[in-house]
């Protein structure tokens, strides 16, 4: 008789982020340029969002290209060879070819093949979902090293004449290498979604709706700003607190607060709601980058590490939230 019990996989005791890299597209778009299409002003945009300028991708800066560029930086900083990567996760909502997953091309171009490769759709919360999946894979033995990438070309699906969103969205990519770690470097994720708020941030039409139009146009993103602001600023502050609790930390243990760069007003309101102590460094990358959805947290993290405002070994809180409405938060040790 053979033993028919299926063996349980086993991985590392702890997971951590070994390297982070970002890619910022080359085209700088000023508020003045945005105001050529909407009835607004530089001052109004700065007051309402904290955005001074944003980066939009040029045609050659594709989702794949930006993913690969940010991943190469992350791998090099982590000292990990692409061949050591067992899984590539790409979080995006703006890769306009639905299937196959862009992750397969990214993996192939990087030299990670035959790593598992797939895309996830969790909008602005995508990167934190990717990090949560990656750390669970490392600890369960499904993978030793995982690339978690957040990438967007939101400029492709932004309506330049929509006063509610035209000034907010931007493009970019950020990647993290997740792997085994001596001590725990990625705390338990607190995540969830509320489909009753599905319509608050969404693509305005389905592709089939578009085909039914007399003059088909690209579907674009729509957002109901004030309810989103309320949910993000106050409900998400509670989720941030839960992520700290689950990691066994208090707000005083935190060195860096890196929320999704949705809007500077949300960053400020969350910081007030959380009563962040003065010593905590707050990511404010949105001012010169815009809201890059899934890419915003790794981009903001890279910027803080490069400027020296944050350093390797710091304890940081990631919290991301957006369309769904979906959210995810975790405490991490910065690489």
């Amino acid at each position, binding site marked *: 008789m053979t033993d028919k019990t299926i063996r349980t996989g086993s991985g590392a005791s702890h997971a951590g982020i070994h390297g982070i890299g970002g890619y910022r597209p080359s085209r700088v778009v000023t508020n003045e340029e945005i105001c050529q299409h909407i009835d607004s002003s530089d001052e109004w945009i700065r007051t*309402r969002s904290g955005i001074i300028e944003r980066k939009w991708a040029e045609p050659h800066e594709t989702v794949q290209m930006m993913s690969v560029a940010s991943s190469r930086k992350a791998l090099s900083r982590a000292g990990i060879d692409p061949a050591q990567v067992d899984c590539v996760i790409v979080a995006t909502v703006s890769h306009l070819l639905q299937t196959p997953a862009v992750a397969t091309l990214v993996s192939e171009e990087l030299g990670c093949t035959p790593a598992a490769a797939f895309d996830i759709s969790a909008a602005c919360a995508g990167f934190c979902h990717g990090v949560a999946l990656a750390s669970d894979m490392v600890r369960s033995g499904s993978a030793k090293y995982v690339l978690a990438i957040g990438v967007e070309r939101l400029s492709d699906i932004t309506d330049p004449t929509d006063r509610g969103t035209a000034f907010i969205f931007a493009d970019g990519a950020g990647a993290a290498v997740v792997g085994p770690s001596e001590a725990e470097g990625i705390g338990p994720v607190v995540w969830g979604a509320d489909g009753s708020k599905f319509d608050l941030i969404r693509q305005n039409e389905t592709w089939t709706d578009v085909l039914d139009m007399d003059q088909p146009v690209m579907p674009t993103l729509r957002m109901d700003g*004030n*309810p989103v*602001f*309320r949910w993000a*600023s*106050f409900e998400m502050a509670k989720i941030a607190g839960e992520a700290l609790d689950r990691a066994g930390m208090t707000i005083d243990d935190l060195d860096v607060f890196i929320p999704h760069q949705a809007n500077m007003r949300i960053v400020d*309101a969350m910081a007030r709601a959380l009563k962040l102590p003065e010593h905590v460094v707050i990511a404010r990358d949105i001012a010169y980058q815009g809201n890059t959805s899934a890419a915003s947290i790794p981009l903001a993290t890279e910027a803080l590490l490069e400027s020296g405002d944050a350093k390797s070994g710091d304890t940081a809180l990631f919290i991301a939230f957006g369309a769904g409405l979906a959210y995810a938060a975790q405490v991490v040790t910065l690489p």
Partner: protein
Amino acid sequence: MASTEEIRAGLAEIVNEVAGIPADDVQLDKSFVDDLDVDSLSMVEVVVAAEEQFGVKIPDDEVKNLKTVGDAVAYIENAQS
């Protein structure tokens, strides 16, 4: 139950904290947007703080009807009763 003046004073403190407007300027006849320069995002913060302080619910759909400080005070008074 708080009196009209207590609610106005409490709201004035909240507006001061959120938007930096002197509390004495926050009088019943004042418009949040036109007189006090409280924009719609700050208004959301004011509403959330008021909900906590006065133990009431002010849904998103109602917020746009609260044009003046008096509107907000009246809404809170009604919601409390």
